[in-house]
Structures are given as C-alpha cells and as structure tokens.
C-alpha cells in the first residue's frame, strides 16, 4: 500500500464528477424503471392491438387507430365529463373553504397550534384509509344516515345512487384536501404586510375594500398554485373512488373518472393498447389544462 502520499492514489479515477454520478445513480436507475420505461413502453403499446394475453408474435401495429376510435367514442368522452363533475366542485369548494378557514386562523389566539395540527390531519392520511372510513360512514345504515334520520331527514343513498355518488366523492375529497388549500392560503395571508392594512385604514378603506384590494391581489398567485396542484391531483384520482364505490365508479359508472376508465380498459378489459392510448389522451388534456392555469398564474403574478 502506498502510504507515502506519492505516486498514483488508489481512487484517482474517482473524480468529483464520477462520485456525484455514483451517488445519484440509484435514484436514477429506479426512476428509469418505474417511470421512464413504462412511459415509453405504454406509448409504443398505444399504437398496437396488444392485449394482456397477446403473445409477442400476435401484436400488430395499428397506427393511430386506437386514438381515432377513442376520440370517436362517446363513452370515452363521457369519462372526462364525469371527471370534471368531480374535479371542478372539489377544487372550488376546497378553495373557498380553505381560504375561509385560513382567514379565521390568520390571527393570534390560544390553542392555534393545536387547532392547526388537528385540521391538517386529513391531509396526512392515506387516501385509501380515508376512503375506507368514509365508506363505513356513508353506508345505508352508516353514521351519516343515522344522524340525518335523527334530525328528521330522509336517508341518503351515498354510495348507491348514481346522482349522489359523484357528490360523495367530492365530499371525501373536500374533507381530505381542504387543509392543503388552507395551508397555502395561510402562507399567502401571512405574507401580507400589516402596514398595508394600516395604510388602507388611514386611507378610509372599509373591510371589504381592504380584502378586495390588498388581501386578494397578494394571495391570489398562491391560491392559483394551490388550484393547479389540486386540479392535477384530483384529475388523476383513482384510489379514493376505487375504495369508496368500486373499480367501475359505482352504480351506472357514476364516478368512473378517466383514470378509472384506463384501469377498466387496460387491466380489467385486457385491452392494453386502447388503455394506453386513452392514458395518453389524458396526459395531453392535463398538460393543456395545466398550461392554461399556469398562464393564468403568470397573469395574476403580473
């Protein structure tokens, strides 16, 4: 062993660059296999008539046929309508409710820390767990209907009526993700300097005027970020609905979102090619939507 410090060190090939690459490589390899490889594989599959049962020699290229068929298929579009029926009310209610709660919490009072922690709990739970206990509560003889009846109301078919199911999903999503919006809104609210309110007070601005001209303009960009996050997240929601009303979105496919349709087609229907194509249509739609929202964000950031 060379202990004199002269001559060639044993790890001379291990330059900083190599070392950096070495440290990053495990993550890179995992990412390559669980994200990049399936992405490319499914893209190529979307142009074939591949099924789960196809032998390699049975797979034929079909060009854009899968895409053309899907775009002409009303049932496929219907899934996007269902998705929107769930995403839009969820995100809107989360936005308003989260902002309102943030306004309430944006002041000093005893027990604020405890209340904050309690409010944040839903967000920290697994969606499957959340969906499971909501399923118990929403059952025909569940605790929700018990209280509704105790108050003299008619029991609601939370999980079996096609007209109610989407709203049940919205309710669960709102319960789980309002804290997220609240957190973001709170970050925005605490970024408003106190002296602006004082200046406005001296300028004789009323409470609504102050909210409209000082609070909102400063908080809006952050709320937009929250909306973007939540929209993208709710758009691809599968787990909650899967557990709540089943893998077809419940009675009449009332809550079968686009994501569940991919699952239904590619896995349960064995139709890998068509399922992959539908997945890519979803991707294009969400990229377009996200771009629109980000453009809005840049506008309000001004």
């Amino acid at each position, binding site marked *: 062993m060379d202990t004199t410090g002269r001559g060639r060190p044993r790890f001379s090939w291990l330059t900083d660059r190599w070392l950096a690459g070495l440290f990053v490589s495990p993550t890179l390899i995992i990412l390559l296999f669980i994200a990049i490889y399936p992405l490319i594989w499914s893209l190529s599959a979307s142009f074939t008539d591949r099924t789960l049962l196809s032998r390699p020699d049975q797979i034929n290229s079909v060009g854009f046929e899968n895409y053309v068929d899907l775009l002409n298929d009303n049932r496929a579009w219907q899934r996007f309508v269902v998705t929107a029926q769930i995403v839009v009310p969820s995100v809107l209610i989360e936005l308003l409710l989260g902002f309102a709660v943030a306004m309430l919490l944006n002041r000093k009072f005893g027990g604020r820390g405890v209340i904050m922690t309690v409010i944040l709990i839903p967000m920290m739970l697994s969606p499957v767990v959340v969906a499971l206990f909501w399923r118990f509560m929403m059952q025909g003889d569940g605790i929700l209907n018990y209280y509704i009846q105790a108050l003299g109301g008619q029991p609601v078919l939370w999980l079996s009526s096609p007209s109610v199911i989407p709203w049940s999903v919205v309710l669960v999503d709102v319960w789980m993700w309002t804290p997220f919006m609240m957190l973001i809104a709170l970050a925005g609210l605490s970024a408003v*300097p106190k*002296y*602006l309110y*004082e*200046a*406005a*007070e*001296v*300028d*004789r*601005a*009323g409470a609504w*005027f102050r909210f409209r*001209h*000082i609070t909102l*303009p*400063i908080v809006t960009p952050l709320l937009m970020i929250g909306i973007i996050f939540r929209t993208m997240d709710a758009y691809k929601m599968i787990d909650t609905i899967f557990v709540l009303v089943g893998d077809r979105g419940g009675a009449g496919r009332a809550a079968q979102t686009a994501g569940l349709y991919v699952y239904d087609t590619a896995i349960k229907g064995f139709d890998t090619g068509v399922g992959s194509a539908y997945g890519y249509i979803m991707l294009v739609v969400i990229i377009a939507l996200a771009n629109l929202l980000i453009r809005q964000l840049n506008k309000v950031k*001004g």
Partner: protein
Amino acid sequence: MSSLTITNLSKRFGRKQALDDLTLTVKDGEFLVLLGPTAAGKTTTLRCVAGLEKLDSGTVALDGAVVNGLSPAERDLALVFQTYALYPRKSAFENMAFPLLARDWPPDRIRQRVNEVATLLRITELLERRPAQMSGGQQQRVALGRAMVRNPRLFLMDEPLTNLDFKLRVEMRAELKRLQSELAATFFYVTNDQVEAMSMADRIAVLDHGKLQQVDTPERIYDHPANLFVAQFVGSPRMNTINCRYDADQAALISADGVLKLPLTDAQRAAVANATDSSALIFGCRPEDVSIHADGTVDGKVFVLEPLGDRTFVDVHVGGATVRVRAAAAYRAEEGERVRLAFDLPRCHVFDAVSGLTLF
C-alpha cells in the same frame, strides 16, 4: 389644515413605558419634527395620533376637538410610512387613487385630482408603473402623493426618507420642505436624523425614552439645548464633554485631572451655583466653539487629524479627555504635537451631571 394637540399622552407596551406624559402642540401650517434615537417612542406617538394605537391615558385633539374615540379613517389624517406601504400590485396611479376610490369619488374627478398631485410631485410619467418598477425615491413620491390627494387635516410622516440613499435624501428634504410650504400643510414628521430635523423643521421636539426633552426652533435647540441629551443628540460631530467641578476659590471650572481650567463670568458662576452638586458638572462645547490658537489657555496634544476637504477635525488630548476641534481645511499637525486651545466660553455649556439639565 388643522392644528394638533397632544396632552398628557402615556402608552405602555407590557413592561416598557413607550410614552410618558407627553404634551405637545403642532400649530396649523407648522412643520414640526419629532426627533429622537431609535425606540424613543416617536413612531408610537405618530401611531397614537393616527389612531392605529390605543392610548393608555391622555388626549389627542385636532383643532381643539378630542379625537381619542375616532377610528383612523374618521380622523382624516394622512400617514406616510417608512416602508412607503404602497399597494404592491397596483400602479402608481391606482395607489394614489385608492383613498379617493374608498371615498366613492367619480372616476373623472379622481383622474383629475391624481394628475394634479402627480404634477406637483413631478411624477406624471410614473403613473402607469407598479411599485416594483420604481426606485425608492419614486415610491416615496407616490406614497406622498397618496397622502396628498385628499387634502388631509394633518400629514403624519414616519421616517419617510430613512430608506433612501444619501443623495436622494438630500434632494427629498428640500422637496418636502417646498411641498409643505406650498400646501401650507401641517406636518408632524418623525425622524432619528438630526440633520433632517435641523434642515426642515419649523420647530423640533426632541424625544428620548418616551419623555419629551425640549421643543423649540432648530436654532434654539442647537444653541440652547435644554439638557445634556439634546446637546449631544443634535449636532454632528457631537458636542465634546468633559467632567468638571467648580472651584469657588479660583472661580473657575476645573476638569477632574486639573488640566482644563476655565475662569467663569459672574453670570456663569450664578448659573453653576444652581447645580445639584458643584463637583459633578459636565462641560460641553461644540467642535466649532473651540479653536487651536497660540493665545489659547488650555494645553493639549494632537491625537489624530480628520481632513474633510472643507474643514479638518482635530482630536486633541486635554489631559485624560479628548476634545474634537474644528479647524481650517488647510490645518496640518503631527501626532503628539503640542497645541493650545481657545474655548469660546459664551457659546459653551455646563450641565448638571446629576440631573442632566443645562446650567448655562
């Protein structure tokens, strides 16, 4: 415009007495500067007047009418913040239009009024810009404009020039003074910069530790400080001070080490007789009231020279004390050189070391 009368104002924050029995009047059309070091209670005073802070006791009155119970909006004052407090996502125009919009003015009248004020402040070309697109000085003008559009009864200014660079500060000093006299407005202006106070104020009120020290014209504050604090806070470089005692036998002021010995006149002796303890006196003299002169009466040794171009400050050791002397620009001396100092005694002061009050 209105006059402002603050009577027996006291305010505590927890254990800290921020303001202690403050009584002060700002006359109609007057430029009054409230001067004091950091945490003296200046901003608290301003906030109490604006109605942003509740008083513990005392009254704030506008034109003689007490406004204690009124909200900031009802007092109809304008407040210019140290941080400008411009609404960040609004243009200069929208910022200035804000108080008028809040008062439901019609749009064409708002436009006309904002343009009027913008012309006065020379910012017409900035009206479309947002605060982030303006320099500090420009933001300052817009903040001023927002205060001016509605002819408030009183302008309150909280260190409005502190965040500007030196050159702009000098320019804005002149500008503010011009605006104040053009509008014949009542200004209640808070600063910790004694140069600002000296150059702009009609009268200066010096505040320290929540207590009013002296209210007077800049000249009187400078030449006749009420106490040691005022004497040292106003003036740059600060007043020289040397601990002394009064020797009745020699009728002279003598420093602790005996090196400084200044004979007093009859009037001065009479003043010194009022001291709590005639052996605990502080002699004070400004650098311009002492000179290096062959006929001087006090021996000193040059310690360091600070040439500033138009004048030179010379630190001279007089026994154990250091006296800063203002000398001619061309004055040069070696360190350790022996010199003689001549004090312009009628312009010097003696303070009671116990009470801090000026004896003469």
